[in-house]
């Protein structure tokens, strides 16, 4: 995948990751409040899954362009 195209897809993926948080929190029936291992889905997402995914994605894209 070319650098600029990869970056555009990466930015779109980051924005999707970002948009999921308020959707989880604010959607009717509060899907983000469901507990998994004692912690709400919303907090697993914003405190663990999304930050890791976003950082790995950005790191790969930043490093990839130099190769």
């Amino acid at each position: 995948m070319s650098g600029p195209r990869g970056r555009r897809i990466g930015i779109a993926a980051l924005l999707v990751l970002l948009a999921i948080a308020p959707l989880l929190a604010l959607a009717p029936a509060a899907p983000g409040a469901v507990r998994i291992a004692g912690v709400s889905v919303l907090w697993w997402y914003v405190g663990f899954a999304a930050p890791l995914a976003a950082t790995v994605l950005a790191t790969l894209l930043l490093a990839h362009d130099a190769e």
Partner: protein
Amino acid sequence: MNALAASAAWLQPALVVAVAFRVAAGEADAPWLALTALVAPLVALLASGRPSSRNPVVAVVAAVAVTLLLGADFLVAADVATLLGASRWHGVALAALPALAVAAWAPARRVSPWALAVAAAVLLLVPAAVALAAGAMPWSAWHRSGVRGALTFSDGSAWVTGGERFARATTLRFAEGQRVVALAPGVYRVVERDAATPTVREWRLASGEALTLRPGDELTVEAGARVRFEAGRRVPGAPASGITWADAPARGPRMLPAALGALVTLLGGALALVPQARRGRVAVAGPAVLLAVMMAALAWGVYAAAVPDLVLAGAWPAPLLRLPALALGPAAGLPLAALSGLALVVMLATAALALRERLARASSPAPELWVAVIVAATALAAWSFDPWRVLTLALGLAAAAWAPARLAPSTTGALAGPIVGGVTFVTLAALPILASGTPAWLEALARYPALVAMPLGWLAARLMPPGGPGVAEA
């Protein structure tokens, strides 16, 4: 610029302590703010390489935005000074010094990225030490905080034993009766809401005199007031229970405009402040440091939530100052708190250096301009403004009237975008002043004017026909 140096402008101490504070206080918007504080600069690091344009509008906007950003940092420093019993001016002056010094110290640019990385590692120390001491990882601490009953003052709370000081003027709402002892003379304003028409009483109390408050009463205290509360009573203003802390009742579809406003404000602010990073193996340090700092802030907030009275004074740095000693004991906690404070000072210096470079590119590299910005930010911190309002105004203005210049395809677009975005931003931000009784649906726009101003600025920048030889890098 490498990704680590580029990230420095984003990692303002005010943003870091704001995330920790809002998580600890159980603010409804804390989850997406914490995530956006990490993802927004990552988007900016990857965003395409059209350099922003230098023009008079961007020059003014950049100077104002940087002043407000530093002002938010200095307001936090003023709160630290008040919490430690010193005057606000001591904190502001001590914060302004490193911001000035980095501009005069030639090797600062070379040292700055590595100093930022070390500061990020130091910020992780306290959450790691608390995790080891308490035997609870952040997710276990979150679970424990989320299943508590009422959030009350413990017997050993500093607010109960010796009393504590309010860093800023605060209004407390009491969910149950409480006897409050004034430990410093001052004026205490009580609004009693037990009748159809609220009754307002002002009490001038001497040290040692007490007020008895009933459920529903509101107590307004001045900045610097020192009071003592009763053990076992609910912490005024705290969430009603652990469940309410974990799942704020305010969260719901009606909050969507404010949530989008916060997202656009932070994203646009990052696009203006964080330049496109040079690619390469070293670039991975940028995202890693951003992740470390934001994870530290989140963990800090989660551990601080176990002590609900830490956020009572409304002072953002209270969780960072007080948590180490409470969780680890004074012997280990106080040195760690001092070390964390030092890390925040280093982050302020690295952020100031990065902001100065951004300002030099957008406006002027003249040292006089930087000194004027520091003086203006210092003067701003003399008033007890809400640092969150100042921070969001700074990021919002940058989003509305600086970021469009980066996204513009032409010099005319780079001028039109900031004008349209800036005028819209100022108009919306001034709505509460211009028209009292702003309708509820406009409230989110007044809080986050960039929600409308940034898209309009971006559209104006994109739609303008090319009118020049291309954009000069700013």
